[in-house]
């Protein structure tokens, strides 16, 4: 969900990343696969002239893998990956561990108290929090603050970041090439052998993040409502951030359990792109990542299947923000061919000033200031939503926008799109891959995305022919099949008057 309405300048760089022309295919042809004995797969690409590289490690573990009572724990674990190990972030792990054990006892009791909800004993809560604080003061004697980040940035790393989504969790940074061994040594240890220190302090930080992204952000709150309405059983109904109830009950033990279950090397994909020496890199990877023991793979829960939506659903929210209209329709996911067709549909509808929504709603009728389409919301591992967002300009209403959008969708489901807009869409889609694969981080992101999602990064190479095979009839039939008013989930964010 867009938090801020920013008209993206790079209209061509659509949400969908598609295979492109010769340029893109050539770049990907040079990707080298390297699988370690423990099942961890690396994708290596030597390119560019500057002696730098971007590394991305992605785990097939995200919010979908959580249980309801632990909503948000995947994200919490991601925060913990920056806290150090037995060797890093501490001056004396032996001494520190004793305190950590005591911290966990108190932390568990605090979580149990929070679990009582309104019946929680506030005095007890206060006391336990004070205990945690004083234990933290004790522990601080042994803590080396932000050791991981400091070490990275001392060696010239930039873009040190991590991201948790519904589908996966990624850790990435860029470094000068001569720091490859340093990177492998640090990254393998801090990701695979973390110590979850300062857990309860960080839990507070995560709670602040929730406040910023959801509680104090009408669009965040609206997104939470959207997934809860559109999904009845799918894990996509459970927002990545968790909620105050679950966040307050996080314990280090729960987080470690999630980590143990999903952060297995066989469940990770690494991508390294830049001015690298491939044979040397392989040696280094084998030395540092190869020695991480697999726990035998991941015991993955089966996801409940989302029942087919058969009736129109609506929800609304009134806030000091908006107005914003969302219209969501269920659709299958990659590698189902309909997912490819939806990329074409979304491009025709919303990419550029010649797109249907822009031409009709912004330029001609001037009833909205912007329309945005996401063809796979909120994520891609499971069947997801085709999502339309529109920003009406008062005095035009949410209903006005809704009616016009449904009209355009109706037309598209009855008549073939013009040859011209069809070809234009395909050109945009193919071109966007070239632009998306021009940087180390772009390439690393794309290959690890597809590899972690469907176990096949080469999907990127096949994409162009998949797009080429789509016909105008496909577009019409797919719109008609999925984008029906009676199958929509509609959300109205009304502006408080």
């Amino acid at each position, binding site marked *: 969900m867009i*938090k801020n309405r920013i008209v993206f300048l790079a209209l061509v760089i659509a949400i*969908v990343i598609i295979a492109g022309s010769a340029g893109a295919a050539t770049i990907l042809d040079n990707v080298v696969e390297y699988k370690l004995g423990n099942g961890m797969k690396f994708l290596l690409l030597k390119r560019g002239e500057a002696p730098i590289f971007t590394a991305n490690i992605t785990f097939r573990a995200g919010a979908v893998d959580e249980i309801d009572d632990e909503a948000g724990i995947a994200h919490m674990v991601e925060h913990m990956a920056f806290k150090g190990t037995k060797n890093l972030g501490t001056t004396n792990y032996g001494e520190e561990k004793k305190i950590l054990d005591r911290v966990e006892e108190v932390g568990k009791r605090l979580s149990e108290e929070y679990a009582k909800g309104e019946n929680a004993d506030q005095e007890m809560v206060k006391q336990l929090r004070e205990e945690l604080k004083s234990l933290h003061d004790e522990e601080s004697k042994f803590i080396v*603050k*932000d050791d991981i980040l400091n070490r990275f940035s001392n060696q010239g790393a930039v873009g040190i970041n991590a991201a948790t989504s519904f589908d996966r969790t990624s850790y990435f940074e860029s470094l000068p090439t001569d720091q490859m061994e340093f990177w492998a040594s640090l990254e393998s240890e801090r990701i695979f052998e973390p110590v979850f220190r300062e857990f309860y302090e960080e839990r507070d930080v995560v709670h602040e993040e929730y406040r910023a992204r959801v509680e104090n952000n009408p669009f965040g709150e609206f997104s939470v409502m959207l997934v809860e309405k559109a999904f009845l059983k799918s894990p996509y109904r459970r927002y990545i951030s968790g909620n105050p109830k679950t966040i307050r009950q996080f314990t280090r033990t729960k987080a470690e359990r999630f980590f143990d279950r999903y952060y297995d090397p066989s469940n990770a994909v690494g991508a390294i792109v830049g001015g690298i020496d491939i044979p040397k890199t392989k040696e280094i990877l084998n030395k540092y990542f190869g020695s991480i023991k697999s726990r035998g793979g991941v015991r993955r829960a089966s996801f409940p299947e989302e029942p087919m939506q058969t009736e129109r659903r609506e929800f609304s929210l009134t806030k000091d923000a*908006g107005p914003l209209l969302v219209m969501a329709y269920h659709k299958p996911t990659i590698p189902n061919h309909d997912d490819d067709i939806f990329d074409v549909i979304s491009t025709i509808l919303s990419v550029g000033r010649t797109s249907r929504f822009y031409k009709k709603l912004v330029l001609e009728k001037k009833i909205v200031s912007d329309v945005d389409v996401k063809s796979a919301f909120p994520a891609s591992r499971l069947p997801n939503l085709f999502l339309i967002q529109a920003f009406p*300009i008062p005095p035009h209403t949410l209903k006005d926008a809704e009616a016009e959008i449904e009209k355009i969708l109706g037309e598209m489901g009855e008549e073939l799109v013009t040859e011209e807009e069809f070809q234009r869409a395909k050109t945009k889609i193919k071109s966007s891959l070239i632009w998306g694969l021009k940087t180390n981080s772009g390439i690393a992101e794309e290959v690890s995305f597809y590899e972690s999602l469907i176990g096949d990064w080469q999907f990127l190479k096949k994409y162009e022919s998949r797009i080429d095979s789509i016909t105008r009839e496909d577009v019409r039939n797919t719109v008609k099949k999925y984008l029906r008013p009676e199958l929509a989930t509609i959300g109205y964010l009304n502006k408080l008057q």
Partner: protein
Amino acid sequence: MTKIPKKIIYAVLVSLFLATAVVIYVAKKDFSPPRVNKVVLSNGIKVFILEDHEFPTFQLKAYFKGGDVYDPPDLAGLGGMTSSVMRSGGTELRSPADVDKMLEDVAGNIELGQDYEYSAAYLWVLKENMDLGLSLLFEILKKPAFDEERIEVKKKKWKDDIRRQNEDPFEITDREFRKVVYGEGSPWARTPTAESIDRITRGELIAHHKRFYHPNNMWIAVSGDFDGDELVGKLGELTKDWEVKEINFPEVPPIEKTFKNSINFAEKDFTQSTIAAGHFGEKRDNPDKFALNVMNYVLGEGGILANRLTREIRSNEGLAYSVYSDYSYGKDYGLFEAEAQTEAKNTVKVVKRIGDVIRGMQETTDDLKADVEKARTAILRSLVFEYESRFSITNARARWDILGLPENYYKVYREGIERVTPEDVARVAKEYLMPDKMHIFVVGPETAGEELKTLGEVKRVELK
């Protein structure tokens, strides 16, 4: 396919620029960056060229001196609207719809925008469409038509944006804090209103275009899969009929750099307070700039979480998820700003902490020595990232030229950072940071406003 970024991505230090063949600071490996070729056309356009044959693409960015500060006081938004409608409003040869279609048929993009000092046009196309892209770009720059209907669309959108400008607390804070420091009517802080936008006429857009958009006021950074000499020839051809005219820049009154306390509060029903604290920054020709950059890196460089503000306020006390500082420079005085977001009940606590952390920078302690050493190393080692793409190399070179920086600015910058000592950092922290004379701005719930009164007199800010 939604990817949700969680932390602020560390932007490569903006003030990094590249010169010609220079050996960069990489511990073991020597690397000679590619050479940017500067060509000045007879009509004054300064072109910075760097061929790139790795991808079949073409990227060009054109700059013109003439940003928001030159808007007449009652027509805030004039420059921004001019650049925007230059793109969307068609040309003398082509309707707006035809411009859009021509570009989008080849998945090309031309966008215009501006900041306080400059406006810029950005063109990106696949290489086989270079000629089309260039010809259309210069048509837009030389002969925009400012179609009335597209003006109306732009006005409607902009007014709607303004209607929505108080939804995001960071957007509110950034905007209002500037107004507090510079003054609400200052060209460096004022923002368009629905009224100022309504007042802008097509005639005024045309006049603004005629005033600023001339080849003698243009810089071009270009990179892609082309032949440099051929390209220069094409640029000359495309601009040969473009009038060379001296630019009449409106006078912008110099900023009076004063420091004083103030507490400013805007009420909004959030559960968090978003806080900004700071004052004026410096001018970009100040030789203390290098020390100031190292200082800000240690203090609160956004994106690298291992800085003092984050350490104290986020990691140690869990009070905030976002906390950072920024020290900026301008043609005139820039801005020093520390920002944090915290639960409303911790507002005053965090405000005070920010002051404490700043004071902690003003003495050469052992901690400061260690932090400065780390900061310098980190900055120097990360300079190599300026060479990530050929376009960014040539773009940086063009920007140095506009800003009046030497063509070997990369080297100058590197040496400047190398020379910075912990004593320098403590000195500039003392000389340029005034924790006791800061403007504070907070947007949050009423309780936060009440609490702030314990710090002194609170001025209410109405959010429009």
